[in-house]
């Protein structure tokens, strides 16, 4: 079964700065997708970005991008130009497996 590990329980960033959230995973599959979800205080889970392991190009969605290192089984999320609305729990996820989450605080 796939495993997903997030080793940063909490991170903080100054508004307008850049922050990187880390995630490592393990899987026996040759092709798979990885996801980052955001959970604001409302509890609603929202997809931030997805990456197909088969693609070498890192996924980008506006201010959000990933650094996917397949050999190292690393899948980090970079948030550029951080905004107050980015404050939330962020979960790395694979196939029905979620990491423990990173709580991101954005300081004004």
């Amino acid at each position, binding site marked *: 079964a796939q495993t997903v590990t997030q080793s940063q329980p909490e991170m903080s960033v100054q508004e307008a700065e850049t922050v990187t959230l880390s995630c490592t995973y393990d899987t026996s599959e040759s092709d798979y997708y990885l996801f980052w979800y955001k959970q604001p205080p*409302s509890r*609603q889970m929202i*997809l931030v970005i*997805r990456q197909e392991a088969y693609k070498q190009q890192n996924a980008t969605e506006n201010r959000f991008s990933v650094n996917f290192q397949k050999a190292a089984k690393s899948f980090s999320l970079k948030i550029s130009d951080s905004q107050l609305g980015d404050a939330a729990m962020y979960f790395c996820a694979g196939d*029905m497996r*979620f990491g423990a*989450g990173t709580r991101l605080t954005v300081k004004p």
Partner: protein
Amino acid sequence: NAGVTQTPKFRILKIGQSMTLQCTQDMNHNYMYWYRQDPGMGLKLIYYSVGAGITDKGEVPNGYNVSRSTTEDFPLRLELAAPSQTSVYFCASSYLRSGGADEQFFGPGTRLTVL
């Protein structure tokens, strides 16, 4: 489209009571999932279903049962509630399996407290 809806939003149970958490999706998704999220933790898979009539256990199935009689509905049954089942429960759905391209769409969650 309403997406994924869950009822109730909140519930307090006494030890030993039973209840059913309802989940409905209107996106014609094949896959549906139940997760629990303990305070400060990630989501753990309880059960999932690949289509009507087909269900399978996840990481933490003990104390729960599910059924999938229609594409739309995927209720989660708690029998003999225990304090360890105090958690927030999320239902989710996806067209394809979650590890195969499709994102999961989540309901708003049910906060359950067992006293």
